[in-house]
């Protein structure tokens, strides 16, 4: 007998986790499956970390609607889930007279989409506000509702809150096929067996086309992965106060210069189509493209200050916008399709997907209600996901208090980012246990500093092994197959044998 659920969510990215969190409010049994060793390992963990104001999507598109609706939800969400979020506002920076003329268009688009508070500012004002900006700036659009977040924390906090409220999360679990009774979905098959359910939510991101095709939905739909490369710079060397977008061209929002909530400047992404949905390697050509694009906005960027490189894949779809009169291909898909029963189909959720996630979750609930699902609220639903202390961010007297309470806060494991043993152990013991190096890294930002983990890696491997009671040689970076070590040394082996 397979386990039976009301809802199975395929995919533990920000969309799947946010849906799990919002659905956990209701009296439903929910299972979320994720093929990787941790949640949030796809696009949710490799993006620009921006909560978009909403002036960019084509007016009338689902992207525009979701973006603007979700933007105003973020303050409450950050408060409830306790993840880092700051509504700092963002700029679209024009260089030269041609780009200046384009700003009016963006203003108009923002108005149509219902973005509040946007206005034009002069080049002089822009130079004052962002001293590192190019002297060739000709003007800018200021959107005060733009924000930045920690995207790993958003996904993890949403998933943890879901687990707190009874959702089951299975990692290392790959969707294989639907179990059908005629036109009705009655469950799924995975590498770990069958799970029966009444509803399946397709939140498989870059694989969401494969999943929907297995249900016979939208055979013409295709995800074409678009890769974007990024640089991360040393926060001691350059500080950018706000998000700086270039005037958008044909391929997305262009190469932007922004800051993380930790103060590191990020530049990227470019946009390259590729076939392989697994290949997120950085390439020299893309890196050059990103760098020259970013230099256009901030000429003082210095390659010597680069501390990390990464690339992410956008799940770009080809669904036409369904709003009448809007000529746009590549909109979000958020639907309960007619061809089968029991499928909530989400696809093509590229940028502004992270921003839109909470609104998408609410829309999924509306769709379920429209489809006749009687959703009854739980009495004891807890929307608060409690925060865990971040030693580094505390003032000295608070640090002292923490160390006095638990001496493991006194041992710093990651020197650059100042992450303590207690914080690492807390993540390994969290509602969704972090069992790989990268899982701990995404939750604590350990190993993301200047030394890229050179110092902390052996110590973290040792801690994971101790906590999970496994040999160090079984500890992985990102799941099975990514073990750090191959065997004990000859001397150590003799020592272990004797």
């Amino acid at each position, binding site marked *: 007998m397979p386990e039976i659920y009301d809802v199975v969510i395929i995919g533990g990215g920000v969309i799947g986790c946010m849906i799990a969190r919002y659905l956990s409010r209701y009296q439903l049994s929910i299972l979320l499956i994720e093929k990787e060793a941790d949640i949030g390992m796809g696009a949710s963990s490799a993006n620009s970390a921006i909560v978009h104001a909403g002036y960019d999507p084509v007016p009338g598109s689902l992207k525009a609607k979701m973006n603007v609706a979700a933007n105003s939800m973020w303050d409450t969400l950050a408060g409830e889930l306790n993840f880092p979020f700051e509504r700092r506002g963002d700029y679209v920076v024009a260089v030269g007279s041609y780009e200046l003329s384009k700003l009016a268009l963006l203003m108009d688009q923002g108005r149509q989409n219902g973005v509040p508070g946007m206005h034009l500012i002069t080049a002089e004002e822009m130079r004052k506000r962002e001293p590192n900006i190019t002297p060739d700036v000709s003007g800018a659009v200021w959107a005060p509702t733009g924000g930045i977040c920690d995207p790993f924390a958003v996904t993890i906090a949403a998933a943890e809150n879901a687990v707190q409220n009874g959702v089951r999360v299975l990692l290392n679990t790959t969707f294989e096929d639907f179990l059908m009774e005629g036109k009705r979905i009655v469950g799924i098959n995975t590498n770990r067996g069958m799970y029966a359910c009444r509803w399946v939510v397709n939140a498989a991101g870059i694989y969401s086309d494969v999943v929907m095709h297995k249900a016979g939905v939208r055979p013409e739909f295709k995800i074409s992965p678009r890769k974007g490369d990024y640089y991360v710079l040393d926060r001691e060397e350059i500080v950018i106060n706000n998000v700086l977008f270039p005037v958008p061209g044909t391929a997305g929002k262009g190469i932007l210069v922004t800051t993380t909530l930790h103060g590191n400047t990020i530049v990227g992404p470019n946009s390259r189509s590729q076939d392989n949905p697994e290949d997120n390697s950085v390439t020299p050509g893309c890196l050059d493209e990103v760098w020259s694009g970013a230099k256009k906005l901030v000429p003082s960027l210095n390659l010597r200050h680069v501390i990390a*490189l990464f690339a992410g894949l956008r799940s770009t779809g080809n669904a036409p916008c369904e709003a009448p009169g809007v000529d746009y291909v590549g909109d979000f898909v958020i639907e309960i399709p007619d061809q089968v029963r029991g499928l909530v189909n989400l696809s093509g959720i590229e940028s502004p997907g992270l921003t839109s996630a909470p609104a998408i979750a609410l829309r999924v609930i509306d769709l379920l209600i429209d489809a006749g699902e009687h959703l009854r609220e739980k009495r004891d639903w807890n929307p608060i996901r409690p925060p865990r202390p971040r030693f580094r961010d505390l003032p000295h007297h608070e640090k002292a208090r923490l160390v006095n309470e638990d001496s493991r806060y006194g041992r710093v494991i990651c020197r650059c980012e100042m992450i303590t043993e207690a914080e690492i152990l807390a993540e390994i013991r969290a509602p969704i246990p972090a069992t790989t190096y990268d899982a701990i890294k995404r939750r604590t930002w350990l190993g993301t500093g*200047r030394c890229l983990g*050179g110092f902390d890696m052996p110590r973290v491997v040792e801690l994971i092994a101790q906590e999970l009671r496994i040999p160090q040689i079984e500890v992985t970076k990102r799941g099975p197959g990514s073990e750090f070590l191959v065997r004990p040394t000859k001397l150590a082996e003799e020592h272990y044998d004797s």
Partner: protein
Amino acid sequence: MTPKEKYDVVIIGSGPAGLAAAISAKKAGAEDVVIIERDVEPGGILLQCIHNGFGLELLKTDLTGPGYAQTFIDEARSLGVEIWTDTMVLDMTTQRRVYATSKIRGFLDFQARAIVLAMGCRERTRAQVRLAGSRPAGVYTAGTAQRWVNVEGYLPGKRVVILGSGDIGMIMARRLTLEGAKVERVLEVMPYLTGLTRNYVQCLLDYDIPLQLRHTVRNIIGKNRVEAVESVMVDENWNPIAGTSEIIPCDTLLLSVGLIPENELSRKIGVRMDPIVGGPYVDDNFETTIPGIFAAGNVVHVYDLVDWVTEAGYLAGKSAARFAMMERRKEIRHIPLVPGNNVRYVVPQEIDKQNLEGNEIRLQLRVKQPVDSPVYIEVRNRDNLVKRKAEPYVRPGEIVTAVITPKEYDEVNRSDFLQIAVVAR
């Protein structure tokens, strides 16, 4: 909590620079000298350098890294230097307030009269050489691999390519070969060796490990674990030469692509940095641009031999001790002179202890009541007699003079105040 509120010289890092600084600070007269070390044992990166060749210049012997470190750890300890291991400095102020944290000592907040920065250096990473490709397990800096093999006792890979002909890279090529791994080759982007020739001979030539100059890694292949790297030959501008690309199957890529002084703390307190070397500006005492904060060793610039790091540590430690002792002098409080039995007043009202080092201090007083029999004029530090002078009589109309000499310095130095009184003989 620290045992003391103030330390003369606080040294951050117990590698060769820190140990030498502690030894010389102690020898130069600093009393409370403490080294703060974030690792669980003192010695710094020397502990994982189990090969020999250390100390040839300075000690005229050939030691291993741990052996070299132990020589200085022993000397420091015998001189009374405190070493706080497993303790990390989080922050400091320009006024030399130090904040540190430790699992065993708790949260520490104390004052240093002088500080020596001796945090050493760290390795350049794949991002700093803009290494493209995927981000699997199996890409390590040579130093991380060295720690795993020599300290933790684990082999990080079986089939290895090393990028960079720095010393640690070549030494690890030999070490991994001895451990049974196959080192496919060492790639160096420059047209010349970047490490020491002796290491090339002893670590690569002797073990038939090929070195390819003007070669670099263009791509890292493998999603979860390194499966191969793509190497390529470069021209004089480091641009890849078409047709020279080669896929080298391996499970590990070690990077030995340079070292950078580690100056997180230095930047935090705002010492001026030299953008070329990446270390603080120092004068010939190894003092930074913030008074009382000194720096020595690889934190200033990356050395080739440990012996010269030790020498730099000696100089910085000596300078720091000198600064600390000047601070101590400034802190010395004046000692009040308090009129006791039958004394109306005494001038001066307080004495500067420093003046007693080699000088006499004359005290003049008037009594309240005449005494016509012989008396003592006594200066006491509570119950201890500092000085006694006999007088045949005392009268309010006549000033009495007493003298404190350098002989009495120790007793005066111990006192909070001195009382001067007339007592019967």
